């Protein structure tokens, strides 16, 4: 697919972000059934249907320019949103190579990569960038290799170190988190950073997931979808900026839910970094307003079903205690409800 890039949209203040009908049609709706059911839902990230968000490892869509600009704004105010520990330098280069290679191969009208030994030339036509640098020599780039490439990418990323039979969050570019902080999680082990997740620890979910991920092979990535609800199409819902967005939830009513409420879906990709034996964790965030979501009645009914059957600890964990009632009321008013 050749995505038509929209001009820069905003994810704050006047919120000009909006999905085209094509973007709505390809939205990664996350619920496989009408009731909430806990599942790890990890699957092999094999290439999906042409045009779908699963077609390529790293999806580029119409919101590219706006999301890259939003990242720039966040980093300007808080450079600590991108941090990588020094021992992850090999993983940084792995990430740069993986992203550049896939972008150039999957979106040749937007990106190009020329490799002449260690002398590489990267061209980003969308952003008007053309840089020649030496692979492996960070002094030839304007930022560290990880920051350099993730500044030109939609979605957040972590680089994970694998050691001692565990994974450690030893780096990241986190400017659009669903209420978690890289500064807080940096250096944590797999179970430590999943500490706040309710119910799953008792089910042994993280033991099994970790065992599975430790054996992840090169060129055999896996993916899963995660979701929550966000007021406004706001990408940066981080604890660091809670004072800006926390109160939005109090403005929600049954009447404005259609425009204010957004289903926030993360397409998470885990890929082995070949040379460092680290792992790249991509968190590509998609936002859709309740109103747009309702243009697909099956989705609206299913969202209603899932929200009505959410266990209380999950409601609390996802920060939905205050918002779930008005959302259900709004969906019921449209008549699109699930027969649960």
């Amino acid at each position, binding site marked *: 697919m050749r995505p038509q890039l929209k001009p820069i949209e905003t994810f704050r203040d006047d919120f000009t972000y909006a999905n085209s009908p094509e973007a709505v049609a390809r939205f990664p709706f996350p619920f496989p059934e009408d009731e909430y059911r806990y599942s790890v839902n990890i699957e*092999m990230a*094999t*290439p999906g249907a042409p045009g779908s968000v699963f077609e390529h490892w790293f999806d580029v869509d119409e919101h590219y320019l706006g999301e890259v600009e939003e990242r720039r704004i966040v980093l300007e105010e808080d450079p600590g949103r991108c941090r990588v520990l020094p*021992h*992850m330098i*090999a993983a940084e280069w792995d990430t740069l190579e993986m992203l550049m290679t896939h972008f150039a191969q999957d979106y040749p009208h937007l990106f190009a990569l020329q490799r002449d030994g260690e002398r590489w030339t990267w061209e980003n036509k969308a952003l008007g960038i053309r840089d020649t640098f030496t692979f*492996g020599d960070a002094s030839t780039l304007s930022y560290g290799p990880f920051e350099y490439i993730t500044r030109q990418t939609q979605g957040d990323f972590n680089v994970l*170190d*694998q*050691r*001692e039979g565990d994974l450690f969050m030893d780096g990241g570019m986190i400017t659009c988190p669903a209420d978690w902080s890289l500064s807080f999680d940096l250096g944590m082990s797999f179970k430590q950073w999943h500490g706040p997740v309710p119910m799953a620890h008792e089910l042994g979910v993280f033991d099994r997931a970790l*065992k599975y991920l430790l*054996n992840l*092979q*090169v*060129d*055999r990535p896996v993916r899963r979808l995660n979701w929550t609800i966000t007021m406004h199409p706001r990408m940066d819902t981080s604890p660091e900026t809670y004072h800006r967005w926390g109160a939005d939830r109090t403005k929600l009513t049954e009447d404005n839910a259609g425009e204010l409420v957004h289903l926030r879906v993360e397409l998470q990709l885990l890929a082995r970094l*070949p*040379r*460092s*034996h680290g792992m790249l964790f991509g968190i590509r965030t998609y936002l859709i307003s309740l109103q747009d979501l309702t243009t697909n009645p099956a989705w609206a009914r299913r969202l209603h079903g899932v929200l009505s059957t959410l266990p209380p600890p999950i409601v609390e964990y996802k920060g939905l205690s205050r918002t779930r009632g008005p959302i259900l009321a709004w969906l019921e008013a449209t008549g699109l409800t699930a027969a649960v």
Partner: protein
Amino acid sequence: MKFPQTLSVRVARVEAVTPVIKRFTLVPAASEVLPGFSAGSHVLVHMPDGARTYRNAYSLLSAPGERGAYQIAVRRQERSRGGSVYMHERVSAGDVLQINPPANLFSLDRLAARHVLVAGGIGITPFMSYLKELAGQSVPYELHYAYRARTHAAFRDELAAQLGERLHEYDAAAGERLNPRALLAAQPLGTHVYVCGPESLIEAVADGARGLGWPESHVHYEQFAAPQPGRPFRVSCARSEREVEVSGEMSLLDALEAAGVEVPSMCRGGVCGQCETDLLEGEAERRDSYLPAALRSRKIMPCVSRANCERLVLDL
């Protein structure tokens, strides 16, 4: 859709490295490049031989990041189950082989302040890629290489040229012995030790480190328990209702695969955990280094473990 399970590679070159070790250079047969890999990675080579297939894991010798070719070294095992003899006698330049993509159960720890590599004999192989990776880093490292005689020391001249004073040799034929405890006692805090070789060497290093109070996280070993022969036994597969005879020379996993019972596997050396199977009846003779004690009565790793009784019942 699923990912393909194996990669096709063509044998570009076979060279004798010592009287009993051959080096194979493998180039892509069906693609332009091979998957990238990290220092310490291995590939599983499939060797179809009539009704059965040998599958042996071999460390990659080439530089991490090299995608044009892989290199492996195979030592002809006197008590081979067949794999190494197959590689030595039946594989030559031009042949096409199937391999599993690289996996790594013996990776470098990037937090180490210093790396000490200890190799015994053919255990040198994983360090060939390590040393290429370490050469580009600022962390100090050294290799301790013990072998039975100079003529059997694979890659010795190449290593001497590359490493200079970083290479420490122990030639048994000349009466030289490696003393693991003394070596470890002389290391500064923050050192990580990596050992690959015969079980006795691995144990000596692991015991030495433990005795000196080293944290487990700083001691790394690659212990592919190549499946050892044992007594024959019988297996009942409860779900597929199949009965499989396991001969003394065959591993349980090989026997199951030969009978058409699919079991996911990766290292085939009792390390990675992929082939973990529920044990419904019978007592296992445990030979893996994967299963925690609490699970040993209910689980079995069929790649290396066998039966302590006449018959096992597995949930397959």
